[in-house]
């Protein structure tokens, strides 16, 4: 266990005005791990994702990826290094067919680089990737305008867009919210397959039951601070976690 962690968040704070959304947070994610991040609403989970993916810059502290400081790297360059994320609020290009939504990630410099300078047939790759996340090819779901698809499909489209970039570290921000039980059940194998392929995954999630089944480790945030870190059962035993979720007895 002496291998340095893939992602190191060191003492990072983010202030919005005088409110600390993330407060002196430190954590590590090792290569190949599937880490779940949970916490009550407003506990700073999405802010943490935004900080790692570079969309917002921390007030203090630093973030290392494979030993390199990425604290002040532009978000598109962070994606280029192999970190890709999904958004909690999906906003696809509604008029375009679902598979055309995949073209933009497939057009990125990273994909071209990985394909040896060529792009290949983007439309075919897009359809393939969508089938992988459960867009039934027989029903031609991928050809329907994104605006006509239910939320569950849009979430999976978001996942496919992130996978298209073949990341090393994949951050899923509340992927399961808005999905039916059946849809979640169909996406779980996709995530497990990604793990087998050696991807490192961070999942922000409110659906604890599904998360606990697949995560190696759970981190609990509250008021921007880490209050617990360990296996699912360890974390749920913690008094502080119970207090955060259920409120303290006064």
């Amino acid at each position: 266990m002496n291998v340095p962690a893939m992602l190191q968040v060191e003492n990072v704070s983010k202030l919005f005005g005088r409110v600390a959304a993330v407060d002196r947070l430190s954590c590590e994610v090792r290569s190949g791990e599937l880490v779940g991040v949970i916490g009550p609403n407003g506990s700073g989970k999405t802010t943490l994702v935004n900080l790692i993916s570079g969309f917002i810059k921390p007030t203090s502290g630093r973030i290392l990826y494979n030993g390199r400081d990425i604290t002040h790297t532009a978000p598109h360059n962070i994606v280029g290094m192999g970190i890709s994320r999904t958004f909690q609020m999906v906003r696809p290009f509604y008029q375009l067919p679902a598979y055309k939504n995949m073209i933009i990630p497939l057009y990125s410099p990273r994909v071209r680089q990985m394909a040896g300078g060529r792009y290949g047939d983007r439309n075919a790759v897009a359809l393939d990737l969508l089938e992988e996340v459960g867009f039934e090819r027989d029903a031609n779901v991928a050809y329907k305008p994104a605006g006509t698809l239910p939320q569950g499909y849009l979430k999976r489209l978001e996942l496919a867009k992130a996978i298209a970039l073949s990341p090393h570290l994949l951050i899923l921000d509340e992927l399961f919210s808005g999905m039916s039980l059946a849809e979640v059940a169909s996406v779980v194998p996709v995530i497990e397959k990604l793990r087998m392929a050696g991807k490192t995954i961070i999942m922000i999630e409110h659906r604890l039951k599904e998360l606990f089944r697949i995560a190696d480790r759970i981190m609990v945030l509250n008021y921007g601070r880490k209050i617990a870190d360990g296996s699912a059962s360890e974390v749920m035993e913690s008094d502080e976690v119970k207090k955060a979720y259920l409120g303290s007895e006064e």
Partner: protein
Amino acid sequence: MKKRRERIDRGIKVRSEDVYALVSWREMLYLAGPRLLPAAAFLLLPFFLGPYWQKVMISVAVFALLAISWDMLAQTGIISLGQALFFGMGAYVSGILNIYFGMPPWITIPIATVSGGAICTLILRPVLRLRGIYFSMVTLIVPLMLVRIIEATKIFGGTEGLSGMTPLPSTRVEIYLVTVVLLGVLFGLRRLMETDYGLVLKGIRDNDRSVTNAGINIYWFKTQALFIASTIGAFAGAFMTHVYMFVGMPVFALDYSILPMAAAVVGGGGTFAGATLGAVILVPMSEALRGIGGLRIVMYGLFLVVFTVAIPEGLFDYIQRKYHQMERWVEIDQ
């Protein structure tokens, strides 16, 4: 024999996604007609117009180019209020090259087109990170600032401007030069925006975070769009310098910013054809209204208001929709 109505485009649409499967000359005409008609009109009209209306036609083409340039930026999510910057920069560069260095028009126009576009891109590049209205405000101010700089420092003829440029050989050459460029830009850009590259540009307009999240540097793509748009505007300016044989402070005037935008709004943004159509309507109208003096602006304003209220999506979209809804009678067997 019973008959029913059927959409003309029905057979074509069913069979085609990207590839058109056409079986008859009628279907070909149905698709090619709307594209050939304006091209033919632009190319043949000079033969039927008098000298005055030929000049108006040049003006139409120039404003159509500026409107297309505006639309190009709008499709990338950049709202520009300063097409005059592009126009004026092209005009001054070609004027200076012609007067001070004695270069002929066929050298000054290409050089001014590219370098004018490059200069405008460099000027606006630092503020490209500003979003929405803040960027628009900068584009509005920069040409007005350049006017004052020319006035104060008296460079390039100061308030008098430069005159006596080499004219183009004839009005016919002028018309065909600008028309061919207009048609090339119109159809070329329409095609460009249909490619995956165009999809990325439109993606930046709709959701720039999502494009960034795909590992694409949106500022680099915005810079490219800005260069394309300012090059088109600079060509219009460089060309007009040799038509008027004059370049001066009026080339940075607000007219060159407002009229193209109005044309794109009347015709409808997002298609380039709408922008062209808008210029075809507004420029001759503004010429025809010249006779009524000050009331011209009022009429003009009223026209714009009526259009934006009645057909907010633009005239071109409206015509396109109606065209695709055309029906024919077909016989049905019992």
